[in-house]
């Protein structure tokens, strides 16, 4: 299969132009690689901003007593940290990866809707500018937690809540457009012969993620609109005094919120499913079951929302239904983990940075899965709910899950993006510092949670002091290490050993058939995939023996 760009027969399209010069290149670009890079840089900035808020939180919790900030500012920090990490760091990072990699993986010249692609990116800086500006407004920014339960976020909210609502609307529009673009690209622009079951898993998981986004972002928009009506137009959706229902808010929010957590993890599943086979030099085990498991997880994500609400007083039968449904998620998730482990089994393994992050992903995400299973057990959840045990749980699925997945992807594809190899020694240092820091920060949170420490409190009894100090030290270590990542990426962009088209000998897929760095325009003539057999699923490109 040829990687050479074929110009013949495309007389009308043979004027290959490079990127425009200056600022307008970035403002007006419709190129999936430029937009992907902008998404990734934006996400990294948000990651540092949200991370510095986490540093404020951990500094205040370093010792009992109030030292650094007052409770009202502490609440703004926990809220903004959550919002920025979810909507600013993790989601845009995956959209960035999708922009860069999906066209390269399916042999498409660009995303299907390039102008909308530009618009959905540029909405984000506007949305986050608005959101962050609330911190400087009279009365402060959002202080009601990233889950913004009413009536704390309506009747009792600071005035800036209206800006928060508008920012959420903008982010939602951006996500929906991004999702439409991903679906349109995958369903319409696959290279000839690239059947659905030949797609790399990253493409599959993103396709399913995009459907989740389209299904739930309007629900989020709906719930914030109801808040807006309650605050400014005298309705009482969530006010019991006016005949409304504060619990309704939680049902609607979590109907969005639970699929949302899978939106943040499924693309990472996909990326890891490319990386583990590459460094095990062995095809992915159980490709078909991986696809079905992803679909099953996506389906289940819609019928488990009330497990976030076991203590609100839902009836016994409701409680049982949501407990059983939640436990079921362990089955498809287990299938995925077993498949990754089997992929490694009897492979020929090496541990470059992408593999290190991917292996840590599998182990630590599984630990987060175990605590998730424990949380599913409703009677036990009465003890865990809203304690640091929950904080430990979701940081175990999101930090080594989503974020390690993003780091693994970044190191895996950096040679393709920049044309240079990154500094492997520094990358390994980045991995080990992140790994140790992250475990030091989040593992002790299980202990203080079980010992009885509620989440979202700025001060605590001395019985929680020791482990909180350990957590803070780990968090500072993890936070500082991310500056090293920035350095590694800049170093890799500026120079380094030139990367071949396929820098990883075990890697498979169409993205490795184009030169490194990937030219500004790729696959203007689609590659022909009909010769690749379906039983070598998810492989694409030439096959290593």
């Amino acid at each position: 299969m040829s990687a050479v760009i074929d110009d013949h027969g495309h007389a009308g399209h043979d004027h290959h132009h490079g990127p425009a010069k200056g600022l307008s290149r970035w403002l007006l670009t419709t190129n999936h690689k430029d937009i992907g890079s902008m998404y990734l840089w934006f996400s990294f900035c948000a990651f540092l901003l949200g991370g510095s808020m986490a540093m404020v939180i951990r500094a205040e919790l370093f010792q009992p007593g109030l030292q650094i900030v007052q409770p009202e500012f502490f609440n703004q920090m926990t809220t903004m940290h959550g919002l920025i990490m979810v909507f600013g760091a993790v989601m845009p990072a995956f959209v960035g990866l999708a922009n860069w990699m999906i066209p390269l993986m399916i042999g498409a010249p660009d995303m299907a809707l390039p102008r909308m692609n530009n618009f959905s990116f540029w909405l984000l800086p506007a949305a986050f500018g608005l959101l962050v500006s609330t911190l400087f407004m009279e009365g402060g920014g959002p202080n009601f937690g990233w889950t913004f339960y009413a009536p704390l976020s309506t009747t009792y909210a600071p005035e800036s809540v209206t800006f928060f609502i508008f920012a959420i609307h903008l982010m939602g529009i951006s996500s929906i457009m991004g999702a439409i673009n991903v679906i349109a690209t995958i369903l319409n622009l696959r290279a000839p012969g690239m059947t659905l079951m030949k797609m790399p898993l990253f493409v599959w998981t993103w396709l399913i993620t995009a459907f989740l986004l389209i299904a739930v972002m309007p629900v989020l928009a709906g719930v914030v609109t109801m808040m807006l009506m309650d605050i400014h137009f005298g309705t009482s959706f969530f006010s019991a005094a006016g005949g409304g229902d504060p619990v309704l808010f939680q049902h609607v929010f979590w109907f969005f919120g639970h699929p949302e957590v899978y939106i943040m993890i499924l693309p990472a599943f996909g990326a890891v499913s490319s990386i583990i086979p590459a460094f095990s030099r062995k095809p992915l085990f159980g490709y078909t079951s991986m696809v079905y498991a992803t679909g099953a997880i996506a389906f289940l994500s819609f019928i488990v929302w009330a497990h976030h609400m076991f203590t609100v007083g839902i009836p016994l039968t409701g409680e049982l239904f949501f407990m059983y449904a939640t436990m079921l998620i362990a089955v498809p998730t287990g299938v995925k983990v077993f498949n990754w482990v089997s992929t490694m089994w009897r492979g020929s393994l090496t541990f470059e940075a992408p593999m290190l992050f991917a292996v840590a992903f599998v182990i630590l995400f599984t630990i987060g899965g175990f605590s998730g299973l424990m949380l599913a057990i409703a009677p036990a959840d009465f003890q865990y709910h809203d304690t640091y045990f929950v904080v430990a749980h979701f940081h175990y699925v999101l930090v080594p899950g989503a974020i390690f997945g993003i780091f693994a992807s970044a190191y895996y594809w950096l040679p393709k993006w920049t044309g240079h190899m990154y500094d492997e020694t520094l990358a390994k240092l980045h991995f080990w510092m992140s790994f140790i820091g992250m475990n030091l920060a989040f593992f002790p949170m299980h202990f203080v949670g079980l010992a009885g420490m509620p989440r979202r409190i700025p001060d605590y009894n001395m019985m929680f002091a020791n482990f909180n100090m350990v957590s803070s030290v780990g968090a500072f270590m993890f936070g500082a290490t991310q500056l090293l990542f920035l350095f590694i990426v800049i170093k890799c962009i500026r120079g380094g050993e030139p990367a071949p088209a396929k820098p990883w000998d075990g890697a498979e897929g169409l993205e490795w058939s184009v030169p490194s760095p990937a030219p500004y325009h790729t696959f203007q003539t689609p590659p022909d995939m009909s010769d690749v057999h379906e039983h070598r699923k998810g492989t694409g490109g030439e096959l290593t023996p």
Partner: protein
Amino acid sequence: MSRHPCIWMGLGLSAIFGQAQAAWDVNMRSGATDVSRSVFDLHMTIFWICVVIGVLVFGVMIWSMVAHRRSKRQHSAHFHENTRVEVLWTVIPLLILVGMAIPATRTLIHIYDSSESDVDVQITGYQWKWHYKYLGEDVEFFSNLTTPREQINNQAPKGENYLLEVDEPLVIPAGAKVRFLITAADVIHSWWVPDLAVKKDAIPGFINESWTRVEEPGIYRGQCTELCGKDHGFMPVVVEVKSAEDYAAWLGEKKAEAAKVAELTSKDWTLAELTERGEKIYQTSCASCHQVGGEGIPPMFPALKGSAIATGDIEAHINIVVNGKPGTAMAAFGKQLSEVDLAAVITYERNAWGNETGEMVTPKDVLDFKQAEEATQ
């Protein structure tokens, strides 16, 4: 003689170790009730199941990471499917889950049975304190944090029950089934005592039910577990379980106290007496927002020092304290405080921090205000 230092050292070490152990707690406590013990057992069962699965899965992974490195194996195998194995690892976890669900369901059904209670207590969450009302007993009171500000601001050493101590704990009898009817007056709170394994959200406009039966007298501490605003971290729950006789005696005392407060309303008060009482009320009910010095935290919590309300029209001042200010964090204290305490705190606010109005609001003024309001409705 020579053995004394050893003995003292031993005692000292065990004291340090004992304390250190509490501070390094890694697990849930089994608690003080049947329910909390069955929840604990459930927790441990699932924990060990997870540990076994974890050891197996991570064991296989680590084995491949050690034994199947490229330095040991130049060529990888190429298998990538095995239907039998894939069916097995779908079905076996399903069976394990069923095994977990059975005891969980049994415990949950037990927890949900709040019928046939001996004592009923209505618990209401306020920003940021709990209110307890004994149904049918005419006894009700607020439970406020008593940890001094100096300890929170690191100006004094912290006590053992730092942030977990209140002026009036919820008192319940040992051995009796106590039913809790849980609600809230403003935002959502959550009432949690780990040793009782009771955690239930307090939601405005809803009444949630829960119950406990504690065998042994003792003091059990917990906290609010739903983010409820600024002082969410500062509204502890303390439950004191007394023997049946002690509980009866306590209940009698509380009833007598309530009668005494009614008497106080008709007493002739002096300005000094009212401001003295008012200062205490101010500290527990007002200072967390309006601050000890009356300077507030503008714009969310306006200053009272030199404010138009605290130095202007008396009726407007009584009105805002009694009815609150809708749409803001200013609660309606009319039902939270007695007429005496309302009068005292208003008088205090009109005479503290240089608000030298010299004006006095008596309990009777407040009562008149409330009655006039009721008449117009």
